[in-house]
């Protein structure tokens, strides 16, 4: 049975209530498709949208993120000493990174930060573009290369005093290790003078990894195939960086990557050890230069949430006992 549809009723109503008919003598222009880099997202930084986003970030996204990904934050105390605009350059392993990072920022930054998002992925449909603009203040960025249009958008916003979250890898990690950093963050910093705060996010892949569509059941199943698996995460902020005199974007970009690498090492060991390990130590960020299984192996066991009622795992205990018996 069909339910009465009020919108349908309007649709059926005659002009001026209903839509006018197009006169047959006039050419119909091709419909404008303002998506991707051309998407007009300015509305998302104006009042109603901004207020709605702030309310959502603080009251919905933040508690949700806190529940799914209980976090340890390090180095955030230094953010107090910074003035907007700031570019936050983070490694990228999961869709969760953006809401996590946004909700970790102090309120002073949180509500005045835009997020660089892949134009071809997040802005390919109007509804998707609108959704991400509204909920996360996303702006479209061309990920393949430094695109003039996307650079202009970001530069203008930085100059207006907006902070920017950017993932210089250009996309989520396919295997848990970071990919090469691209020059976007460094380029924007050099152009605007905004400092770059390196950020390392650890553990989001255990919650919501990038799925390998080509090999279902292969890479990207760290969350054991569940839509979301709760796990602890760590967000580490580094000291702000600025391009040195005469340093170009490429070299500065490499320095940003090294800074994130030190943060990654800090998570793997501790702050002091990270400082003392040699510069050419095996990559904590990019992983060992080896075959896929060894790279996967090097990721280590997943971090588990401590459960309040942690019964001993009987099966595991039995296996260990058996092994011991065999050895003995």
């Amino acid at each position: 049975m069909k339910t009465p549809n009020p919108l349908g009723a309007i649709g059926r109503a005659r002009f001026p209530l209903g839509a006018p008919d197009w006169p047959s003598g006039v050419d119909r222009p091709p419909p404008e498709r303002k998506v991707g880099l051309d998407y007009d997202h300015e509305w998302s930084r104006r009042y109603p949208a901004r207020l709605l986003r702030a309310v959502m970030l603080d009251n919905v996204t933040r508690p949700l993120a806190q529940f799914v990904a209980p976090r340890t934050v390090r180095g955030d105390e230094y953010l107090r000493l910074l003035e907007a605009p700031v570019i936050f350059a983070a490694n990228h392993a999961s869709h969760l990174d953006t809401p996590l990072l946004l909700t970790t920022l102090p309120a002073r930054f949180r509500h005045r930060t835009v997020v660089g998002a892949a134009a071809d992925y997040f802005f390919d449909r109007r509804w998707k573009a609108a959704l991400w603009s509204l909920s996360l203040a996303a702006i479209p960025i061309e990920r393949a290369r430094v695109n003039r249009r996307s650079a202009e958008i970001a530069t203008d916003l930085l100059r207006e005093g907006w902070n920017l979250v950017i993932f210089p890898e250009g996309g989520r990690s396919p295997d848990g290790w970071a990919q090469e950093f691209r020059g976007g963050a460094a380029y924007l910093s050099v152009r605007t003078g905004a400092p770059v705060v390196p950020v390392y996010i650890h553990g989001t892949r255990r919650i919501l990894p990038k799925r390998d569509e080509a090999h279902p059941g292969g890479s990207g199943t760290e969350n054991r195939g569940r839509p979301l698996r709760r796990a602890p995460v760590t967000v580490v902020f580094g000291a702000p960086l600025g391009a040195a005199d005469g340093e170009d974007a490429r070299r500065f970009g490499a320095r940003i990557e090294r800074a994130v690498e030190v943060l990654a090492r800090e998570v793997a060991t501790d702050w002091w050890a990270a400082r003392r390990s040699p510069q050419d130590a095996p990559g904590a960020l990019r992983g060992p230069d080896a075959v896929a299984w060894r790279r996967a192996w090097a990721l280590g066991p997943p971090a588990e949430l401590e459960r309040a009622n942690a019964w001993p795992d009987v099966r595991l205990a039995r296996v260990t006992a058996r092994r011991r018996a065999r050895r003995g």
Partner: protein
Amino acid sequence: MSPRPGFVLEVDGSTPPTLFWDGEGFTLERLPEGSRIIYAPEPLDALKDPVGAIRHALAHPIGDSEPLAALLRPGMRLTICFDDVSLPLPPMERPDVRQMVIEEVLDLAAAAGVDDVVLVAALALHRRMTEAELRHALGDRIYEAFAPHGLLTQHDAEDPENLVHLGRTAEGEDVEINRRAAESDLIVYVNISLVAMDGGHKSVATGLASYRSLRHHHNPHTMRHSRSFMHAPSSELHSSNWRMGRLIKESGVKVFQIETTLNTDTFPSQFAFLQRREWEWTLKDRVTYAATAKALDTVPAKLSRQVFHSIRAPHAMTSVQAGEVEATHELALASVWRQQGVVVEGQSDILTMGLPYICPYNVNSIMNPILVACLGLGYFFNMYRGKPLVRPGGVLIMQHPTRPDFNPAYHPSYIDFYEQVLSETTDPNEMHKLFEESFATDPWYVHLYRTGHAYHGVHPFYMWYWCAHALEHLGRVIVLGGDPGAVRRMGFSPASTMADALEMAKDVVGPSPSLTHLHTPPILMADVQ
């Protein structure tokens, strides 16, 4: 607008009532016409780039010292000592200056390949810091990197294994300090000079010392001859520390001193009115004052204490200097004076003050009556250079509820001091003779100091000695709004209203007395001429 200097206001008919702190609360009091009110200078501007300033200080040391980087080499023993939870007040917003400085020091040490690094909280006979306090002072990263390996230690003045006797000064003072520090190739001392008393040789010679060493300058005689202990040249306390510091240097212990100073930006924006001059209170300030005062009146003391102790001050660094101890300290002192100095003409018959909820020894805790006395008669009274703000034989009126409440975990010996010593005598010399030894060597206090978070058994005596100069100088001490039992136990007089207090004061100093009010915090140092 650049910060305005402090000044002395003369009260006339148009002067609004004056803010008096009252422990976990405050009141507005109208002072008699002709009274003087000393206002602190406004907070100085913060250093634009504190981390950059620290790096610069480490690379450009003061006095006879090489840059820190040049003092670091692989294979050396490096000990980084830092001031404990008693500084700054209130605890500052993150990042604490100690964290900022030590991270830079460690960065240099890492770059130089130094492996043997130990951090020591230089707490002398203070209580050990809790994990949360250490994390706050040093940051989580340093805590997590050093604490699990036992490399973040707290000075233990009662561990004979970990003390070394370096010798005696010409005056016969024992110098006994932390063994790890003394046997290191380099001590880096990270200090916060919140007031003019802090820093210099006092950092190592007091912060890392044992009771055997401290008793030479923490005694009634020294404190009576420190006028004031906030002004090193006239302070016997400092002379003694300087002798010890020089002996430490001569015995081959190398100290690289890093002194930082903070501005007096003491209260966060919701309490902004506390550091504004009353006639400049905006509508918002007045509303906040009324609402806060009312709320504090109605909630239980425990809750208001919690509210106040959760305050984190927006203190910002005004200077950082490093290098040789004495030269560095000189510079730091200049910065302290630049922030806190106020010139005052002459003494008065009566000095009034409102005492806040916090002093160096009750961070995250209760301000017990002994600490009330110490804050008023020890610290605030001594915030002068030249001569005291009140004439000899004058009267001090201080406002504080002075409830006989104690924190049994932090201040166990204070309870016994209050019940068993103050009930016998309030004379610093007499208690020094009769009781100090037995408290200092009491095995239970030693146990609590070493394994818990208790101040050392002898600490309440030091608090009382801190008052010795004021007790000798003053004709009477009146505690406005204080618990009568506790106030009388300490040998002071309780008064319930300002008018009563002034009448009582007149009995001592005569009719139509002159009156000065010390409007603090924010902290100020009176240069009395």
